[in-house]
């Protein structure tokens, strides 16, 4: 009975999470355009519905009704597989993020986490690194030189920055002595990790931009050089999946950043409130943090230009990687001697 109720709860949670992720990603596209417009002293989309709020729906409908086109000489199966993998892996990431405190109803504890696996962080990195296959397969199977260049750039960029990203969180794992995301969140009950590991956060943030292919590291798309990069040949909803997966990725990495560095669902003064209210407020606070980081992604995009390719590689391998390794040594020394 208890097992069944937990199973039902998890299914419901996964489904809700799926809807929320898609909803937030859809409205991120609207939000992105609005933010861009405001930063450039424009108005942004305001025709579809009040304040243009129906714009994502209009965009989606437009995408669906576009002509489906496949270039000659492209690999049929891989061409469809590319965007599917990109979308699938983007949606899988948030499964391990703890969305709130464990809720107890009728003596049964329901954790607001789809899967509380003991290697949570490794799962996130595994899924994120699978994401590159979507882009690589999509770009390669298009039979187009620009797509291929975009795909090659994407894969080398993501592989380079994954290293620094993975190294930058090792101090956190040392500090909380667990790979489980729920444990990492609980360990931030008093002090958020951002205050303990500011440099680690900086490295992680920069790598997150590279991993989600956002400006200043959007070289795989790079309209000015590569037409559309890896998705040059894509049309209709297949293109939509690629573009959409970028926004889902943004949501996922914002969630991971909030969880790892900004205390997840914790907020100052949480212990003063009664437990039930604190748990519900915690969920809202976590989403607030996520939305802030989504805004931050956009804020950066409309502020700074794209890196050159050699600058990107130099930053990844010669600056971020050594810095992350140095941090591991320093924090390792601190944790073992104090």
């Amino acid at each position, binding site marked *: 009975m208890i097992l069944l109720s937990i199973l039902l709860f998890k299914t419901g949670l996964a489904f809700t999470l799926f809807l929320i992720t898609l909803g937030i990603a859809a409205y991120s596209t609207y939000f992105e355009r609005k933010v861009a417009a405001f930063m*450039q*002293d*424009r108005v942004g989309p305001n025709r579809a519905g009040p304040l243009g709020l129906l714009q994502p729906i209009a965009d989606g409908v437009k995408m669906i009704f576009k002509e489906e086109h496949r270039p000659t000489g492209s690999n049929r199966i891989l061409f469809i597989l590319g965007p599917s993998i990109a979308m699938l892996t983007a949606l899988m990431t948030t499964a391990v993020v703890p969305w709130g405190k464990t809720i107890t109803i009728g003596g049964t504890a329901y954790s607001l986490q789809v899967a509380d696996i003991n290697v949570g962080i490794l799962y996130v990195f595994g899924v994120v690194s699978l994401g590159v296959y979507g882009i690589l397969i999509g770009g390669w199977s298009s039979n187009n030189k620009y797509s291929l260049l975009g795909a090659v750039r994407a894969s080398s960029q993501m592989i380079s920055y994954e290293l620094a990203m993975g190294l930058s969180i090792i101090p956190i794992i040392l500090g909380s002595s667990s790979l489980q995301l729920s444990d990492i969140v609980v360990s931030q009950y008093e002090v958020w990790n951002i205050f303990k590991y500011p440099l680690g956060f900086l490295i992680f943030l920069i790598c997150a931009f590279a991993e989600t292919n956002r400006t200043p590291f959007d070289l795989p798309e790079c309209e000015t050089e590569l037409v559309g990069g890896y998705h040059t040949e894509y049309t209709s909803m297949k293109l939509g999946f690629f573009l959409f997966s970028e926004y889902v990725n943004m949501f996922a990495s914002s969630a991971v950043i909030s969880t790892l560095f900004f205390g997840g669902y914790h907020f100052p003064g949480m212990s003063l409130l009664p437990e039930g209210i604190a748990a519900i407020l915690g969920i809202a606070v976590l989403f607030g943090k996520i939305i802030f980081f989504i805004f931050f992604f956009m*804020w950066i995009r*409309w502020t700074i230009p794209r890196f050159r390719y050699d600058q990107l590689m130099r930053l990844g391998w010669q600056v971020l990687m050594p810095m992350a390794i140095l941090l591991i040594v320093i924090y390792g020394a601190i944790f073992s001697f104090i």
Partner: protein
Amino acid sequence: MQLTNRSKQVSNKEMTFSERMYLPAIAGGLRVTFSHMFKKSATVQYPEQVREHSAVFRGQHVLKRDAEGRENCTACGLCAVACPAEAITIEAAERQKGEEHLYREEKYAAVYDINMLRCIFCGLCEEACPKDAIYLTDRIVTSNYERADFIFHKEDLVEAVALEGRIDITKRKKDK
């Protein structure tokens, strides 16, 4: 020789550590973009809001009628001759008995077409007209889906007979 006082001495010095980090510069940039979020937008919401035209704006043509509602144009063809873009086509016809209330003089334009894609809105037709018949107005020629729709025929150009349908060209007249 110094042409302006705005020239700057260019230096090729090594960047300092903080410059090489980029982060202070990025923070400065973020401040600039964030401050712009609260500035007034420069957008004019076009179909609802229209920016005021300059007094000498030359837009869509109008064929004027006189005070009694008769067409001024006598199809003399001077406008078509003056037109540098050869956008105007006129075919003349003789006024019949009983049409005196329609046309002011014995000859009138049976066909008066202006190709708005050829027209350069220079206003030479207006200057050439001896009969005060053609004027450029402050109306904008709207977009169309077909090329043929850009050829404005006489019924598109002549103003209405009713006084409230007349098009005000006093600004252009003052100019002359």
